């Protein structure tokens, strides 16, 4: 990975030895936060620091994931900031530049944001972007999101319960049977003047999706009888509506809707898109 990083940029020069971390020792670098990286198929991290006289340091972190989908996934964990044209997607926020490209997630952090560090971080980002030969692809599941009403910066892609609970707590147990093989997209929509949340899960097969649907019915919707197939809408706390729909290998959940129709319309739109993308 060191070939992606220059030894100097905009007056900043690499200082000290590069440091490498793997799945086995990532906690030495970031304590518990490493769990979020391990929830994706993280392989290796390179950390290089840059210094310049009388200027804040810049830390470059290059994360190698096993797939471009997971590079996008970890990038999507925190979406706050200003979008920047770099790599396959980039965000800048107060001295921190993050972007993803191919199987690489890049995090460039200035010790302090100044005009100089911002320019240096951007220049470093462009260097790294240029050194990465392949673009990589976004998760296919993203294409199943209907575009009308989708709120910018609201999409998170992940696999497991750890990530789900970091974004949106559903239960203290693995209610949806999520695993490293599951693909999940969490997104927010503006529908009928209200923000609603969509959780779209893709399982290995229809049986797994059906089992998750049944479990959600029983535990979350408190329905001990045989669940109504293929789905249902329920009124829950705070006058909100929640819906669940089993659709082949997919489970489609809508939360925080103002009325049943919003749940049904968004679900139908997802079912249609899933059919178009995965058939």
């Amino acid at each position: 990975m060191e070939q992606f990083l220059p030894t100097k940029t905009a007056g900043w020069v690499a200082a000290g030895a590069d440091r490498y971390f793997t799945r086995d020792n990532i906690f030495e670098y970031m304590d518990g936060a490493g769990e979020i990286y391990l929830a994706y198929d993280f392989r290796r991290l390179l950390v290089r620091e840059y210094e310049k006289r009388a200027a804040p340091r810049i830390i470059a972190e290059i994360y190698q994931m096993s797939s471009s989908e997971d590079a996008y996934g970890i990038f999507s964990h925190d979406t706050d900031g200003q979008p920047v044209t770099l790599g396959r997607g980039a965000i800048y926020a107060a001295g921190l530049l993050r972007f993803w490209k191919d199987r690489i997630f890049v995090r460039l952090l200035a010790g302090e944001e100044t005009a100089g560090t911002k320019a240096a971080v951007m220049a470093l980002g462009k260097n790294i972007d240029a050194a990465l030969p392949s673009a990589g692809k976004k998760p296919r599941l993203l294409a199943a999101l209907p575009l009308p009403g989708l709120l910018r910066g609201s999409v998170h892609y992940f696999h497991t319960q750890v990530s789900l609970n970091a974004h949106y707590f559903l239960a203290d147990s693995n209610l949806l049977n999520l695993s490293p093989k599951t693909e999940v997209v969490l997104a927010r929509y503006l529908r009928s003047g209200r923000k609603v949340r969509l959780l779209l899960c893709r399982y290995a097969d229809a049986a797994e999706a059906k089992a998750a649907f049944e479990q959600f019915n029983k535990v979350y919707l408190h329905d001990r009888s045989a669940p109504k197939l293929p789905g249902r809408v329920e009124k829950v706390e705070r006058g909100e509506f929640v819906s669940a729909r089993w659709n082949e290998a997919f489970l489609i959940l809508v939360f925080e809707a103002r009325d049943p129709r919003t749940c049904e319309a968004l679900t139908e739109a997802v079912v249609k898109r899933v059919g178009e993308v995965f058939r």
Partner: protein
Amino acid sequence: MRSNKNEESVTRRDFLRGTAYGTVGLALGLNLACSEAGKDEAVAFDPVSMAKSLFKAERPVSRVVLVRDERALDADHKVNAGVVAEMIDAAVKTLSGEKETARAWQHYVRPEDKVGVKYTRCESVRVHTEQAVIDAIVARLAEAGVAKAGIRATDYGLPLKECTALINVPTIKVHPLTGIAVSLKNYINFTGRESSYHHEGSVKLGEPWLLPHVKGKTRLIIVDALRPYFGPGPQVSPVHRWDYRGILAGTDPVAIDTIGLAIAQAKRNLYKGEEWIISPPPTSIAAADTVYHLGTSDPSKIQLIRQGWEKDALV
């Protein structure tokens, strides 16, 4: 196949109904017993009469002092060490009811104590306890009569067996695995099994406080709330830190964490302009109250004494 564990799940619905995690639901609206302390006024503390007159509390109230000073940080977030030391002095004096700093500290340490100052410093996450906070505490311990050789300040490697007293000096940060990290989580590395206290295990964050070499030794908690973190993690983005310019002091870790949670939750809501519930729910706070009996998370039993700069106090 569904497991029994799933059958017994605590769900988001339980959380929103307020039937799970005790009073953690206070994140949606804190109803504290607040009072204002004048800058030079020490507040006399009579927990029994306070409980009788103000609350229907079965136990005395836990007091948490919040001192804020606009001068604590400059426009570039640089710490003014002198102001921070003054804030810590003010907080400890108010908490103890003493007017003189050394006497205030003598409420919590004795000259013969071996004191461990447990701060937090994570290289990557970077919501460190500021050095100015640590230095001020170490200086005041010495002025209270504790021998310099008897004071050890560190994140990792405190000689717990030797320590007769602990001063817990955390920061406030929202955490993607435990919900919130304030004083309860600050003792996680006393166990050597940090990972076991993440995920579902975060409910056990009170456990390290009951380790044989830790139990009963925490005399004081001073929270560096100068620049808390309120974002989604996993690492810190500068846009999710803010200059709160506060110091919290107390002796009840559960009450302290409850206030820290309320501040972070209020900031998240303010930042997004809508409810942005801390996730996962910080189960450790309610469990520290009801399972480990380390203090109270009941807002009606927490007296928050606010002092100093009031703008955007959030609690």
